[in-house]
C-alpha cells in the first residue's frame, strides 16, 4: 500500500558511535533502517538512552554517522556534502525541541526569535515582507501579531512551544523533527499543542518525525511507529497494526506500561517487564525483517517462526 507513496527521508544502515574517552566506541544507534513518506507522521518511541534523539540529531546533521547514510528526497545528506546542499537541508528540515524555555533566546524578542532563520538565509524581500511573514507565522500557531515585541519569559510554557513551532514553520520546511515536543508541557496544554501540530500538518502538507517516550501520545498522532530499544529499532508498523499485533516483547512491555485512566482496570494490571539479558539469544544474529507488508520486527529465523505463529493466531482471532 505504501508503494505509491513518495519516500521523503530514508535512513539506511545508520550507526552513530560516540568516542568513550579512548575506550571502546559506544554505539548509540545500531544499524537503523527506515523510510519516512511525504505527508505522514512517523514516530520513534523508546526510553531515555534508546538513541531516539540521536537519530533525530543525525538527520539534522548534528551527529555524524559512523556507518550508513541518510537520504533526503533521494539525495545523500549525511557525511560530507556541499555548502549549498547543507543550506538547503537546514532549511527544509527543521526541529522543534522539548524544552521551549531553553530553546529560545531569553534576551531576544519573539520577533527576533522567529525571524532568526529568515535573517540567516535572507529569505525576505524587505522589512515589510519579513514582518508580514512573522505575523503570519504567529497567527498560524495561534498567537497574536502584537505578541512579537514581547520576550520569551512573558509567555507560558504552551505559548513558548507555539513560538518554537512558529520559528520552525517560518522556514517553510518539508520535514519537521519534533523531539518530545510536549513532554515538558502541562497536561491541559499538551492537547493544544498536539492539535496544533496536526492542524499544521494538514494545512501545509508537512511531514513529521515525532520522537517520544509515551505510546498513548504517539498512538494519537502518528501514522507509523518505530519502537527503539538500546539503539536498535525492534519493530516498525502502522499505528493500528502495532497496537493490534505487537510482536517484539519490548513493544509489548512498553504497551503494558501505558497507564490507563481507569482505576478498576489499572489496579489489577499485571506488569510485563522486559529484560534483554534473559532472552534466548540462540540461533543466528537477528535482523529487522518484514513479517507482513509494512510490519517489520527485529528477529532471527527462529524468532521469526515464533512471531509468525503468534501473528497468525492473533489474525485468526481478529
Amino acid at each position: 500500500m505504501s508503494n505509491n507513496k513518495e519516500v521523503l527521508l530514508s535512513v539506511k544502515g545508520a550507526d552513530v558511535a560516540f568516542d568513550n574517552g579512548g575506550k571502546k566506541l559506544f554505539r548509540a544507534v545500531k544499524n537503523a533502517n527506515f523510510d519516512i513518506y511525504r505527508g505522514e507522521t512517523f514516530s520513534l518511541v523508546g526510553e531515555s538512552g534508546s538513541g531516539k534523539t540521536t537519530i533525530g540529531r543525525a538527520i539534522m546533521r548534528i551527529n555524524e554517522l559512523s556507518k550508513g547514510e541518510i537520504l533526503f528526497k533521494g539525495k545523500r545528506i549525511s557525511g560530507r556534502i556541499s555548502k549549498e546542499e547543507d543550506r538547503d537541508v537546514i532549511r527544509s528540515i527543521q526541529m522543534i525541541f522539548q524544552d521551549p524555555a531553553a530553546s529560545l533566546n531569553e534576551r531576544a524578542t519573539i520577533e527576533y526569535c522567529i525571524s532568526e532563520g529568515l535573517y540567516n538565509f535572507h529569505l525576505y524581500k524587505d522589512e515589510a515582507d519579513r514582518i508580514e511573514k512573522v505575523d503570519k507565522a504567529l497567527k498560524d500557531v495561534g498567537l497574536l501579531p502584537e505578541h512579537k515585541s514581547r520576550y520569551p519569559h512573558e509567555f507560558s510554557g504552551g505559548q513558548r512551544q507555539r513560538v518554537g513551532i512558529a520559528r520552525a514553520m517560518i522556514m517553510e520546511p518539508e520535514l519537521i523533527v519534533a523531539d518530545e515536543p510536549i513532554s515538558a508541557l502541562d497536561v491541559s496544554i499538551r492537547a493544544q499543542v498536539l492539535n496544533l501540530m496536526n492542524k499544521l500538518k494538514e494545512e501545509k502538507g508537512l511531514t513529521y518525525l515525532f520522537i517520544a517516550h509515551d505510546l498513548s501520545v504517539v498512538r494519537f498522532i502518528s501514522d507509523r511507529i518505530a519502537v527503539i530499544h538500546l539503539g536498535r529499532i525492534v519493530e516498525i508498523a502502522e499505528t493500528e497494526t502495532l497496537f493490534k499485533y505487537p510482536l517484539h516483547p519490548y513493544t509489548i512491555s512498553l504497551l503494558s506500561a501505558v497507564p490507563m485512566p481507569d482505576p478498576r482496570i489499572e489496579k489489577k494490571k499485571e506488569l510485563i517487564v522486559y529484560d534483554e539479558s534473559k532472552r534466548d539469544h540462540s540461533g543466528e544474529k537477528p535482523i529487522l525483517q518484514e513479517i507482513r507488508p509494512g510490519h517489520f520486527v527485529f528477529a532471527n529465523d527462529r524468532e521469526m517462526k515464533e512471531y509468525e505463529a503468534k501473528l497468525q493466531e492473533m489474525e485468526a482471532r481478529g
Partner: protein
Amino acid sequence: MEERNIILSAKDIVVKFRVRDNYLTAIRNVSLDLYEGETFAIVGESGSGKSVFTKTFTGMLESNGQIANGSVMYDGKDLTQLKTDKDWEGIRGAKIATIFQDPMTSLNPIRTIGSQITEVIVKHQKVSNAEAKKQAIEIMERVGIINAEKRFDEYPFQYSGGMRQRIVIAIALSCHPQILICDEPTTALDVTIQAQIIDLIKKLQQELKFTTIYITHDLGVVANVADRVGVMYGGQIIEYGTVEEIFYEPAHPYTWALLSSLPQLGEKGKELYSIHGTPPSLYNEIKGDAFAPRNKYALKIDFEQEPPFFKISDTHYAKTWLLDPRAPKVEKPEVIKDLHEKITLMTEKGGAYYVEQ
C-alpha cells in the same frame, strides 16, 4: 467502610510567597483529612500548588514562603507552629518522609550510596555504624537492588535513574515513617521504569503499613495507586472523592477537562479535547471560581462568587456552582461518559491497549 483514624489533618491552609515586592498566594484555604493507611493522590498541573501544600507537612517551604493561616495537626501537635530545624527533629524524615521527582538531585553525587543510607539510619535511630550498614543492605534488598552488598559502596552515577529512585525510596523508608509523601516520584523516569517504581511503592506500603500522599499530574498513575483523590487547581482542592468517584462520576468541570484531554481517549484523525487558555496568575486576587475563564460551562456567578464545597456523597465533594440546586443541569462531556466501558474495550482482546499476559 470501617471507622478510620485520621493521621493528619490540615485545616484552612493559606501559603503566601514573597516575590520581590509582591505577594503570591500559592495555597488558598485548603483542608485535608488524611486517613491512616490510605493512599491519597493529589492531581494538578504545575503551579496548582500540589507540592507547596504538602511541603507544609514537613516544614520545607522555600525561605520566602510562609503559612499565613491554618493548622496542620499531626500526633497532637500543630506542625505550622514548628519553626526551627530542631523543632522538626523527630518528625521530618523520621515520621513524615518525602521522595522527590529527580533522584539525581536528591542524592549526593560524591558520596557512596551506602554512606547516604547509613547516615540517615544512624541519625534517626542512634545505632552503631555496623548495625546501620546491616539495616541499609536489608532495605536495599527490599527495594529491589540486586547484589546490594556489593553495590553499597558504589556512587550514584553508577546507578541508572530507576535504581537511583529505588535508593531514594530506601532512604525515605529507612526510618519507618508513618507518612510517605511521593512528589512526582516517577515523572523523570521512563514509562516501563515508572510502572516498576509504582509497583514497588505499593508493595512496600502493604508490608510496612505507611500512609501515602501521592502527588502527580498523570491521571493514569492516579488510577493505579490511589484510594482517594484530590484535584487541585489555582491553589485549591476543587474536588475530592474516592478514586472511583473521581474517575467514573467526576463533578467539577476542571476534572472533566483533565480527563477528557488524555491522549489515551483521543481518536486519531479527530481533535483531542483541549482546555483553552492558561492557568490563573496567583499574584492577583482570584474572584469567583478560578477555573471560570477557561470553563465553557461557567455560570455568571462563577465569575463573582467563590463556590462552596457541595456534597455529592459521604466521601465525594466538589467546589462548583453547577451542583447548586438552582444551577442548570449540565452533563459531563461525551468522551468521558461510560469511561470504564470504553477503557475496558480498549484493554480487552482486540482493543488498542490489549496485551497478552
